[in-house]
């Protein structure tokens, strides 16, 4: 099944394309964009293969590749996808070409650097979602920063230098402590697992000292919460999103923020289950505050781009809420909503970018009556807006509904106020749409506002198709994530319920098949990967009430 290293191909293709782009004459901007687009479409094709060949019935990691990387320190090249990573891999593969396309025709300076930066960024983002070794993950996680820093800093708006630095320092500050926690996990693994390792699957068999676990949980949660961002750690976001070029805002909102929510699912829940369960109410409370605060602040914006940026705080709050509800519906809804937010907010930023290219203004007062000037844009924009406010029939509805229902079942007191956020988002998004699109023409130079070009229409059509597809028939996505989400939650509840205190020298608990012999000694898998998580899914399912 994994005779072809599909995931490695997806990681290497962008880098190889970047090398090709670096060799192209910098004056041939069309060729540069073309090369970049070809590379990204090839990655999308690879991702498509992975999506189609993904076995939805299995909760195990698939397309697994393993190779020793730095064996003396227990670091391996270990990649794989399960139902939790797959949606995000797909999202990345879809949104990156759109981001590049948004720059095509809009950015004419330093095109070569731009194409290289976007390709490197794609590789790092995909790596973050497929890495199954903590150091490998951290490497990709941090490798995202430099291209993103340059993307904001070189092609951004007037306050780009500060915004880029703020983005960089915020995220680095969080992840620095995560690195310490990763190393501590590694040092802990030696006594219990026989050999020190950074392998995520092996580390899930670790029994942490209950005095230590909350600290490691806190270090991870801080890094991820900054990235999401969870209120009150969101203050880097409005500046970065607003100052970034359209391509940067799209990637930031659509993919980068998901690194945080994905990290919670992938690392925090299985590694620090007890703390995750214990502190879930606190995180849900913060999430609800974020939903309401983000919504209220969005409503108060006079800057279209800032409005969209702040709306992300609100929407990501809802996703975080669903994650920590820890019920299968809510978590699946969150996962779906990660994709949905990528599509709809990515679409909103594309919309703002298209408008900005024409008027060079982000102020809402400078707009009005655009629908009459851009009749082709108006319906597309409406669809994106409705998707973002979760109208039934669009993708957003499915995700938000699952999150709210799933949360209501286990924690109604958080679900009810979160509903307010849904109403708020309808209010500010429709208000924005009305202000920009309808009413008398208030644009300063109506003659400069031409309708969408072919290229610009091509930006929106894939999004519109996906919005309705997921809205009307979400089964292909949900089916693929269900087994993994259930297995994960079973594991979390099992681990959180199990007695935590195990003497440091004790042999690995027999109920965990991730003993060193099972994982560390396993070389490159020849057949279908029989993953540890698969074994756990069965007894775990019974543990759940």
């Amino acid at each position: 099944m994994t005779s072809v290293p599909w995931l490695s191909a997806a990681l290497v293709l962008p880098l190889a394309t970047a090398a090709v782009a670096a060799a192209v004459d910098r004056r041939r901007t069309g060729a540069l964009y073309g090369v970049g687009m070809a590379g990204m479409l090839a990655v999308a094709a690879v991702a498509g293969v992975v999506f189609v060949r993904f076995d939805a019935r299995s909760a195990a990691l698939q397309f697994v590749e393993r190779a020793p990387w730095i064996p003396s320190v227990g670091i391996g090249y270990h990649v794989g996808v399960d139902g939790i990573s797959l949606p995000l891999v797909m999202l990345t593969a879809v949104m990156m070409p759109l981001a590049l396309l948004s720059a095509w025709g809009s950015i004419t300076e330093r095109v070569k650097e731009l194409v290289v930066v976007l390709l490197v960024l794609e590789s790092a983002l995909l790596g973050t979602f497929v890495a199954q070794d903590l150091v490998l993950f951290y490497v990709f996680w941090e490798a995202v920063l430099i291209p993103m820093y340059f993307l904001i800093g070189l092609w951004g708006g007037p306050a780009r230098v500060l915004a880029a630095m703020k983005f960089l320092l915020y995220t680095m500050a969080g992840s620095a402590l995560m690195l310490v926690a990763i190393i501590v996990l590694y040092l802990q693994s030696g006594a219990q697992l026989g050999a020190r390792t950074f392998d995520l699957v092996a580390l899930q068999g670790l029994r942490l000292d209950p005095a230590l676990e909350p600290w490691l949980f806190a270090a991870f949660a801080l890094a991820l919460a900054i990235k999401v961002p969870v209120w009150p750690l969101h203050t880097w976001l409005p500046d970065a999103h607003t100052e970034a070029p359209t391509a940067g805002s799209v990637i930031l909102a659509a993919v980068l923020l998901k690194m945080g929510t994905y990290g919670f699912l992938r690392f925090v829940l299985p590694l620090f289950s007890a703390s995750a369960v214990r502190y879930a109410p606190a995180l849900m409370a913060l999430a609800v505050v974020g939903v309401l605060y983000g919504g209220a602040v969005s409503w108060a914006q006079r800057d279209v781009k800032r409005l969209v940026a702040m709306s992300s705080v609100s929407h990501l709050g809802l996703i975080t809420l669903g994650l920590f509800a820890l019920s299968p519906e809510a978590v699946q809804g969150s996962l779906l909503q990660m994709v949905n937010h990528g599509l709809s907010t990515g679409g909103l930023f594309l919309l703002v970018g298209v408008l900005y290219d024409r008027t060079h203004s982000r102020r809402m007062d400078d707009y009005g009556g655009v629908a009459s000037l851009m009749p082709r844009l108006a319906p597309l924009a409406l669809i994106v807006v409705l998707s973002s406010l979760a109208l039934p029939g669009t993708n957003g509805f499915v995700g938000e509904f699952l999150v709210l229902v799933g949360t209501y079942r286990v924690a109604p007191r958080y679900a009810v106020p979160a509903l307010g956020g849904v109403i708020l988002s309808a209010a500010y998004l429709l208000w924005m749409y009305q202000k920009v699109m309808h009413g008398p023409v208030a644009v300063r130079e109506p003659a400069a506002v031409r309708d969408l070009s072919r290229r610009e229409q091509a930006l929106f059509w894939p999004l519109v198709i996906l919005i309705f597809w997921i809205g009307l028939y979400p089964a292909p996505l949900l089916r693929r994530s269900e087994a993994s989400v259930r297995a994960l939650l079973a594991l979390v509840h099992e681990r959180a319920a199990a007695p935590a205190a195990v003497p440091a020298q004790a042999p690995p608990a027999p109920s965990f098949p991730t003993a060193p012999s099972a994982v560390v000694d396993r070389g490159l898998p020849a057949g279908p990967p029989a993953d540890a998580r698969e074994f756990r899914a069965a007894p775990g399912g019974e543990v759940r009430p």
Partner: protein
Amino acid sequence: MTAALDVRLLLPELVVLGTALVVLLASVGGAASRPAVLRWLAVAGAAAGLGAVAAVPPAGGAAFWGSYVRDPLTAALQAVVLVGTLLAVILSGEYVRRTRLDAGEFYALVLVAAAGAMLMAASADLLLLFVGLETLSVPLYVLAALARADARSQEAGLKYFLLGAFATAFFLYGVALAFGATGSTALAALSGAAPSATLRAAVALLTTGLAFKAAVVPFHVWAPDVYEGAPLPVTAYMAVVAKAGAFAAFLRVFVATLGPRVGEWGAVLAAASVLTMVVGNVAALHQTGIKRLLAYSSIAHAGFLLTGVLAASPAGTAAVVFYLLAYTLMTLGAFAVVLMVRRADGEADRIADLAGLASRSPALGAAMAVFMAALTGLPPTGGFAAKFLVFTAALDAGYTGVVVVGVLSSVVSAYYYLRVAYTLFSGAPVPGVALVEDRWVPAALALAAAGTVLLGVFPAPVLSAVGQVAAVFR
């Protein structure tokens, strides 16, 4: 080990020193007008030294009545010193020719300093360590003042000499006290000596002398001024070779000798490490000159290196050696970018001078981005792997607080390092700033960049090589 004077063990040092003499004689003998010949001699000497390090088996053989030892740690440290020397010599050629520095003196002194650092790495006796320290330091004093017409260079040389001589005196006093406490200057005698006030004073004084050389806070104040005033290639060389020599001595004294007694010195070095990381990184924030910035950067990295020393473990020692190699490559690389740029009226040593250079040479911009990311400690570069290793070793030894300060100060450092990289990509080139026309500076720069990336992406081969130093602890 029957022969007290096994000269074969000293082959690498002899090759390097011999080349230094040949360079000097050749420059007196008429090659002074052809600096390229002298440069290639020096390159050949450093390369031959590397070959000799590889050829002589590091089996723990001792010479000079046990004061000199060639074990895997010696070999690894000497290799780092020689890699730095090799690159630095190639990088210096264009600058030395253009500014008409005395090429013979320059290359000979560079090689002598390298031999000094190599001796420090091989010391099993405090006296040999002292000899190595002086052999390293004196050429650096002279090199700092080599631009005779430049008042800044003269000032740097004098400052470095006066403060350095003072620090060496501390070191020597420490040697004397150690002799008083143990009746021997052998390092082995220190490890077994009964604790006493004299011994503590001796170790404190030795630490002071080494901390000065390594630019560890609070003995760092000379670094920014000397780095700023010395001619650019001298600064580059000093930044790496003095660091390598000093940390070779740290490893010899603290880890290989006093390692089992880490409880007696761990807290002091931990405090010095924290101070150094914080002061170095914070002071670098507002620098406008690239040399001063890299001076504070080198101070900060001394702090990171100390976290590896603190671990007092085989893994920590291997990590420090790995770090020294990564530091050598990324620091020389950063200086190489600056060496690629010149102004009509002197060195292009303001950060603002680098503005917009990536538009003229994208490769230069990309290389600087790599070096700055590496110095920050961002993956996938050697700088990340190095920090990762020293922090892992320090956490393993229980220095959680030190490591937390370390990672957070790395975040602070992102501010000033990435600003430099950003400067190259933004804005328009400054009038009067030009790129130098030379084949070899870019070649060395490319080598340093490739090495920095390889150390981050495929560190395993180097790591298994430096892992050999664990043999010292058996």
